[in-house]
């Protein structure tokens, strides 16, 4: 009895110790803003200079991606140019954001710079993990006069701007990161297969499904009509699926009485999901539910799939000399829309670079950000390192870049047709990864026939999504 009581007291004491430690951590937040003032003070002395943080060492965390490969190539030049020493680490995408989130949460100031996407900003900005870049952009002593921020597509730059209010669209508020490149969504197809079967790129989802019926095992057993992502995570929802969802007039959330309310079981959403499920069943890979970006793109390149409804750049990476078996046969067309729809809505994903709020080297980190999102670097990385789609208009207008794009039939034209309707189609909110992962899991269950109808599956999903965001109050 005595021993049990002693054990309970010991356990409570230990828990008490943890509790004290954690409260202290929480109180430390926000104390690093003085490092921004220090950066401003240094820049004030002689105006903008690339060597104003010479001798400083920064840590950079990169995701395994062609954008990161381009950065790594240029790091020695950056070090020589600025006198800043860069220590970088590269992590495969599967675990990349776990590592970023854990590092930022530790608030040790490492890494100083990290790659991020717009959806992650909705989590990181709310948690105070990420440094607003406004104090740097707005200070003429800190901004390179040649930076030309207005050269970046406003739609792309705006996706990294947010006022931190869940439910509010991106495009207003602080600038949290700067884009390295981005992707929009379109239909990539094998033009030789289309010619063989006398087909034209489909204009509507109904036409697409019809084409899928024609292209069953178009090249024998193992070949199938269309590659789509289907794995149990947000990556399944944000490419072609979300763009089509918007093109059917559906939306993920609405703000009602100061709360976010899921609209995934609306009639538009049900119709779209029914058609999408039909598309998967008729045209998708038998292994659809395990398909990520890599498998979907690789199947188009290998000639296993006749079409790919995904990021334009996913198909792009299958082209070029020796990139894949079908490298020279891939062409692009605007994504198929719903019946009667004229306006193209494409979702957008951008890889960007951002600064850790707790970084102790913000001046050096800011110089890194500017260098690797500058017009010169963007052009070099697009031409030499396949870092597409570039976020700067000047790169798209560059004759050498246009020449490079000319090899890819329909790529440039599809981009131009789609870019104006390209924006983030999700409602910004900090539970994005939970709601979209549940969405992907529900889609898998609907395809597997777990529910008696699409409506039933989406009704259950709506309940889950409402529960996930119930703590959000919009004032």
């Amino acid at each position, binding site marked *: 009895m005595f021993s049990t009581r002693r054990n309970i007291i010991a356990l409570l004491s230990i828990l008490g110790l943890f509790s004290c430690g954690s409260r202290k951590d929480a109180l430390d937040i926000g104390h690093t803003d003085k490092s921004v003032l220090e950066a401003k003070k240094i820049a004030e002395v002689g105006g903008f200079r690339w060597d104003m943080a010479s001798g400083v060492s920064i840590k950079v965390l990169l995701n395994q991606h062609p954008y990161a490969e381009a950065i790594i190539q240029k790091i020695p030049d950056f070090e020589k140019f600025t006198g800043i020493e860069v220590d970088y680490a590269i992590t495969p995408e599967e675990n990349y954001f776990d590592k970023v989130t854990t590092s930022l949460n530790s608030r040790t100031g490492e890494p100083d710079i990290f790659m991020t996407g717009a959806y992650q900003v909705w989590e990181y900005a709310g948690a*105070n993990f990420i440094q607003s870049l406004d104090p740097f952009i707005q200070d003429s002593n800190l901004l390179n006069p040649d930076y030309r921020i207005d050269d970046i597509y406003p739609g792309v730059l705006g996706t990294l701007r947010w006022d931190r209010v869940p439910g509010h669209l991106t495009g207003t508020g602080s600038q949290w990161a700067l884009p390295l490149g981005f992707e929009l969504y379109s239909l990539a197809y094998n033009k030789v297969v289309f010619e063989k079967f006398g087909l034209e790129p489909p204009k509507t989802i109904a036409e697409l499904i019809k084409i899928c019926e024609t292209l069953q095992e178009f090249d024998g057993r*193992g070949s199938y009509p269309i590659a789509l992502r289907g794995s149990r995570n947000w990556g399944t929802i944000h490419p072609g699926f979300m763009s089509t969802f918007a093109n059917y007039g559906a939306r993920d959330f609405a703000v009602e009485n100061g709360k976010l309310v899921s609209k995934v079981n609306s009639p538009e959403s049900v119709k779209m999901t029914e058609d999408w499920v039909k598309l998967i069943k008729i045209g998708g890979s038998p*292994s659809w539910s*395990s398909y990520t970006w890599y498998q979907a793109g690789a199947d188009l390149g290998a000639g*296993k799939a006749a079409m790919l409804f995904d990021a334009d750049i996913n198909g792009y990476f299958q082209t070029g000399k020796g990139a894949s078996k079908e490298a020279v046969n891939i062409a692009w067309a605007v994504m198929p829309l719903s019946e009667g729809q004229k306006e193209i809505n494409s979702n957008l994903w951008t890889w960007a670079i951002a600064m850790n709020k707790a970084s102790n080297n913000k001046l050096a980190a800011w110089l890194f950000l500017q260098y690797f999102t500058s017009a010169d670097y963007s052009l070099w990385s697009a031409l030499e390192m396949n870092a597409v789609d570039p976020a700067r208009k000047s790169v798209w207008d560059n004759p050498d870049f246009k020449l490079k794009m000319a090899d890819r039939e329909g790529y440039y034209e599809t981009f131009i047709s789609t870019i104006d309707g390209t924006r983030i189609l999700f409602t910004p909110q900090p*539970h994005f990864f939970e709601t979209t992962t549940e969405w992907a899991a529900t889609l898998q*269950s609907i395809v597997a026939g777990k529910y008696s109808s699409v409506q039933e599956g989406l009704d259950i999903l709506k309940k889950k999504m409402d529960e996930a965001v119930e703590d959000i109050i919009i004032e």
Partner: protein
Amino acid sequence: MQAGLINSDTNFSKKPFLVKARPYLIMTPALLITIGILYPFFTAIFYSLTNYSFRATTFRFVGLKNWTQMFMEPEFWHAILVTGKYALATTGSEMLLGLGIALLLSKESKFTRLLRVLLIFPLMIAPVIATIIWQLMTNNSVGILEKFLNLFGVYNFPWASSAKTALLTATLIDVWVYAPFVILLILAGLQSLPKSPFEAAKIDGGSAWFTFRTLTLPMLKPFMYIALIFRLMASLQEFAIIFALTKGGPGNTLMNLSITGYTTGFAYLKFGESLPYVLTLWLIIYLISRKLVAKWLLVQKTAGGN
């Protein structure tokens, strides 16, 4: 005698510091390991009582809210079911296969000697890599297993893509990776058994089945229990194979306690809510392994003739 004792104490006080500290120094690594285990454990208990999240800058004590919420979630009971089904399917198959193959390999020949070496290979491959290899082998376009099934007129077998066959696929991979461990353990047990009881049974004309049932199996039981304890504990907490294969899908088909805990903690950033899943898993493993270890001690005594 008493004088001797006094002398000894005096000698001890004169010993150099390092000699006096030796018992404590010897204990230090064990102490550090214990702290290394206990610290995260108590931290986990504490945070399971808070609303701690990577997303928020502060957290507060919420009592047993996370625990009660978890017990009310249908996902939790589904995760318990998946954890149990997976553990039974994999451990059961591995034990049966392990015993059968070990018995076959216990006969001495060049072929069995070679096979014993080859059997170690799957154990040298990380489960995640093994899963990726199996994903390729089961791929409907290029997979060798798909081609094999084609010979029997089976096309587009869904493997991990279907809710109906996902558990079977994950079990196959688990068995491929870990059955060699069970085989080697039981084989080592078989080779350490005394020869005389078997020779006596042979002289008395005992059949192979009689010898197996009354001699081999009882004497082999301690080894089988060790294999069972290791495999059951590991399969209850299986993460790598399921995560690499389907991330818990299709739908929620393979969402066991480990994957649900990980997804809630790292994908949804709800650490306070994820920890009850992990701690429940710990409790289940602790209770089962305690029971099995007690049983193993008993079986060992019986096998030793005590």
